[in-house]
């Protein structure tokens, strides 16, 4: 019996050693990127172009939401996490518990546009008005000088980084009105806004460039100028609802992961940021 136990122990040890060795190859040839749905298009084109210049290297990109990506990073199932929001305090705590030190990189900016139907006569709103609409204090377009009609509030689902960002920065950490309809994707939200004259929603500025929906000019306060979300206004920070796009890694990146992140910040990568519809860090 003792002999059997010993044998098992030795076998397990060999197995563990073997596994340990196979997990740390000399040169990494594949990286996984997981996270924000907002950034999935951006990261896919980035990966595609990166692989063209690095034969034999493989970059796989999956979405799922910023929170999903961060959870995957902390569980060690992805190398890079793409996130459209910063990591939350409790996520940093969890990382600390696991002995990890996530590193943050900004690769571009995204303006969050407020969408309405093209038939809507309202052209600009203040941040406070937007907050009141999404919290249910303003319920009719006539209160904003538009055609009378009940405001139909559309939001993303709570698993979206955009949802958390909007809640934190536009609603001042308040809650959405509970009759807000939660859409599973920005595409579905845009679809509903385009077919509903009284709907209002929010999403990445890149989704508003076709003429199906109208993007609103936003005023920081009632006295400040109404700013339309464009590349310049987002980068300069004059457009009030803009956010950075992040990449997170576990610890200081090295090898292929470092190469990839450097590529994103190089002129080539920044050109892709613009092509996909986001705002590069430099003009």
């Amino acid at each position, binding site marked *: 019996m003792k002999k059997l136990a010993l044998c098992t122990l030795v076998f397990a040890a060999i197995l563990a050693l073997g596994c340990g060795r196979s997990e740390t190859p000399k040169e990494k040839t594949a990286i996984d990127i997981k996270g924000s749905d907002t950034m999935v298009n951006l990261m896919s084109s980035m990966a595609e172009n990166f692989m063209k210049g690095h034969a034999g290297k493989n970059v796989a990109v999956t979405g799922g939401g910023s929170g999903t990506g961060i959870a995957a990073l902390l569980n060690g199932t992805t190398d890079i996490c793409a996130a459209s929001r910063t990591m939350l305090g409790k996520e940093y705590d969890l990382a600390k518990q696991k002995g990890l030190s996530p590193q943050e990189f900004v690769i571009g900016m995204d303006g969050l546009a407020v969408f309405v139907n093209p038939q809507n006569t309202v052209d600009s709103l203040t941040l406070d008005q937007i907050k009141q609409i999404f919290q249910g204090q303003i319920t009719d377009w006539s209160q904003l000088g538009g055609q009378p009609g009940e405001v139909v509030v559309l939001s993303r689902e709570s698993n979206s980084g955009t*949802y958390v960002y909007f809640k934190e920065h536009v609603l001042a950490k308040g809650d959405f009105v509970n009759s807000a309809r*939660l*859409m*599973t994707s920005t595409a579905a939200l845009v679809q*509903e806004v385009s077919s509903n004259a009284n709907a209002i929603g929010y999403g990445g500025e890149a989704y508003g460039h076709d003429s199906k929906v109208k993007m609103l000019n936003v005023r920081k306060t009632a006295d400040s100028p109404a700013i339309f979300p464009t590349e310049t206004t987002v980068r300069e920070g004059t457009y009030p609802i803009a956010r950075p796009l992040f990449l997170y890694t576990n610890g200081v990146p090295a090898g292929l992961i470092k190469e990839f992140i450097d590529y994103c910040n190089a002129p080539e990568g920044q050109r892709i940021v613009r092509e996909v519809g986001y705002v590069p860090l430099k003009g």
Partner: protein
Amino acid sequence: MTELSRQYWKARVIRYFFQSCAITSILIVVLVFLFLGRESLPFIQKFGLSELFNPVWQPVSFEDEQFGMLALISGSLLVTFLATLIAVPFGVISAIYIAEMASPVEREIWKPVIEMLAGIPSVVLGFFGLVVVAPLVKEVFHLSSGLNALTGALLLALMAIPTIITISEDAIRNVPNSYKEASYSLGASKLQTIWKVTVPAALSGIVAAVMLGIGRVVGETMAVMMVTGNAAIISFSPTESVRTMTATVAAEMGEVPFGSDHYHALFVIGIVLLLMTFALNMVAQRVLKKYRIG
């Protein structure tokens, strides 16, 4: 080893193999219950069962996280009820037509088309709902938005109808010809025979078909998530947005921090959902026993 004992052992081995296959399914059910119970217990210990009756579902909040499930339960019930209301008459009447009145050629066309309807992936149906049905519902009822319980129910009915038609039709066709012949010989018309003889005789099969259809409706996720608007409010109006239990679990499970209150709350929803389908099956069994004829 003699030939006889070899055969004896062979029979035993086969018997055990079959037995273990049968036991596996029971084991899986038990394991699912245990797993759901284990994962939802921390929530019940912390908040108590009263959260089931709290109307506010606000799981991601900087102010006050709330995990009230009443709105989700009422949302699921409302959509299921409406879908059943649409699907059952439609499905059963279609089944009667196909089984009793349609010509053989018609039947050859109907059956494959209906089976095709059953084969449409729910995400495709959901997309169709989002782009076609929701604007239509909005237009017809003059609503502020087409993303509501009624649109969800229409799509769910579309999914339940093939199940109801196929199984009801089989049940109706299995009614022995002698029943109908006896009815005709007593001077009953075709319609009288169908309503007074054939349908009652096939009732247990029809009820089973309806229950299976409702089962599909309760558990359906993707299509309802895309078209019901997912606002967690309590309402009994078909034109209001609803958030179903299935959509909640599907939308939030991917994001939720492992081991948080929110995580455990989603498992409580899973248990409620399981108990609901369990109850549905129990009722179906009772009804089946009561009405079994012949």
